[in-house]
């Protein structure tokens, strides 16, 4: 378990938020006059993680190079928190040849083998893969761990259940993270899930489970630290359910009519200004620092956008490459 560094947690959350905010802006900027999902420099679907920073930052604070993460269709926060290069990631989102995957994958298929990071768009299917990575680490005799990230909707998919049993049975060094942001697109948890907490399901599968409320980055930090220590010590898997907040829509372009009154208070529950307030209260963050941290994040994100937009695109024939090694 790494020692708590509040300023680092805050900085990383701000960095991620600045990134998501900028992508939001750029994504919409050139889809006018009539909105067309396939148009613009960033085409296709876009699932932003604003509001869910505490989950990524609290967990990744304990991870080292060589630890693996499988993330879902909403991956940016975990990617950035785990050290994926912002320039290469952004170039991939822009479909450029300098992107992580030469423009083949896009925002839902970011693969960074150097950081053992991957994501995919099929719900819950990163769970078995993380189990496999954990299996490999165990067989190789390292104390690396795998983190599997999915949403609360994913916990009703078969792969979730198979993975939990497998990990417990084989005592795999994997941490299952559920980001409960209340909504599976338009379906609230109350309409999809019989259990009030996936920590209860974890117990059913033979592993410790914890549910963290209030999108509290320090509570995530603490619980994740314990789970990761457990895994590194060879004691097997754990589950962390983090009640977090989806600040934007499920995807960009989602009018969120289904969300009703929840939308009225969503910005009041933004975890970042709240944490800034906590740190200020503790005397660990000044207004000057808030400004300089924001500026630093802006500079880094601006550079990534510039890198991406000035990168070359692949050529049409490149589409035929990389089917087989």
């Amino acid at each position, binding site marked *: 378990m790494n020692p708590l560094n509040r300023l680092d947690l805050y900085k990383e959350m701000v960095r991620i938020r600045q990134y998501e905010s900028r992508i939001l802006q750029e994504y919409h900027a050139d889809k006018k006059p009539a909105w067309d999902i396939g148009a613009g420099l960033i085409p296709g679907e876009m699932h932003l993680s604003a509001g869910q920073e505490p989950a990524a930052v609290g967990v990744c604070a304990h991870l080292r190079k060589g630890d693996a993460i499988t993330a879902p269709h909403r991956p940016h926060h975990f990617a950035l928190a785990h050290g994926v290069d912002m320039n290469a990631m952004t170039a991939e989102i822009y479909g450029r040849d300098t992107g992580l995957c030469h423009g*083949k994958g896009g925002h839902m298929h970011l693969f960074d083998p150097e950081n053992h990071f991957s994501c995919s*768009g*099929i719900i819950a299917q990163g769970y078995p893969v993380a189990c496999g990575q954990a299996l490999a680490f165990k067989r190789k005799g390292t104390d690396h761990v795998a983190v599997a990230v999915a949403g609360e909707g994913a916990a009703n*998919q078969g792969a979730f259940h198979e993975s939990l049993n497998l990990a417990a049975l084989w005592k795999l060094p994997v941490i299952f993270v559920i980001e409960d942001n209340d909504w*599976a697109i338009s379906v609230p948890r109350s309409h999809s899930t019989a259990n009030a907490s996936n920590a209860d399901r974890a117990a059913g599968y033979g592993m410790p489970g914890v549910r963290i409320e209030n999108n509290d980055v320090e509570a995530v930090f603490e619980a994740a630290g314990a789970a990761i220590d457990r895994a590194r010590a060879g004691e097997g898997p754990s589950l962390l359910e983090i009640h977090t907040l989806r600040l934007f829509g499920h995807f960009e372009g989602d009018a969120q009519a289904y969300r009703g009154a929840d939308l009225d208070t969503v910005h009041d529950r933004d975890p970042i200004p709240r944490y800034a307030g906590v740190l200020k209260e503790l005397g660990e963050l000044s207004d000057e620092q808030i400004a300089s941290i924001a500026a630093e994040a802006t500079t880094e994100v601006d550079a990534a956008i510039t890198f991406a937009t000035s990168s070359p695109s692949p050529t049409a024939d490149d589409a035929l490459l990389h089917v087989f090694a």
Partner: protein
Amino acid sequence: MTSTDTATRRITAAKAMAEGIALEMRRDPDVFVMGEDVGAYGGIFGSTTDLFAEFGADRVIDTPISETGFIGAGIGAAVEGLRPVVELMFIDFYGVCMDQITNHMAKIHYESGGNVTVPMVLMAATGGGYSDGAQHSQCLWGTFAHLPGIKVVVPSNPYDAKGLMISAIQDDNPVLYLFHKGAQGLVWMEKNPRSIGHVPEESFTVPIGKAAVAREGTDVTIVTLALSVQHSLDAAEQVADDGISVEVVDLRSLVPLDTETVLASVAKTGRVLVVDEDYRSFGLTGEIAAVIAEHDPTMLKKPFRRLAVPDVPIPYARVLERGILPTRDKIAACVTDLMA
């Protein structure tokens, strides 16, 4: 977009298919809908537009993300006499529920010696062209057409979208209804004018297993389906300026396949191009070639020609995706080449 003039009102394919479901739900209390975000949201691609408002949560059911669970539940409900319309959000998600589809939904009637029926519609969104990447852009009708026991229908326009849905619900067999996202007429996608059209308000059927000649011609036959019908019609208009007369056969169904209409057209023109947004090898294009060759290969004045997605996963970047899709320009170029 709708016109208030009922005699010529124009609606999107999305609204048309939803209207087909609504008419059947009004007529038959055993029809109900299940799927993800089919309720208040109206389906991610508009397939259940306005159904929730009319029929409520009891008959339009939002499910958890449990495809094996709810597709299996659809099968069970169907064998007990209900008529479920179940949505698999993207056909690409078939991986998580393929057993229920092909080992159960498709095989129960046969395995039971004809004693048990599964009157179920499984509808799913297909197709790419808007950078949704490898796991959200596939067509896959070839895969499902290949596995015995499932009828497979693929409308290309609003009229057929409604008529085929009504036929599918009335059919006592499992019907896979694949709708191309780019042909739904969605306001948030590229505007394809042929995705909005005149659709009668009353109930009507379009026969399953019957192709349509979408455009008559004499020089080249294009055999195709879904959004590629729209692109082929556009390409046909383009090459008409060069004096080439193209006949476009809209398959509308893959299972059963209307070989008669296809062969009659090829016999007439002697030149055939199959345009398929599914993967090239081991699929629809090869099937049409086999049908022609088995019947009479001497019908062809020029070798069989196909335009399909090459055997690669669908790439994300626009230039890469355009590079592999059967676009209007490529269709026109193939036709021109066949006349050279």
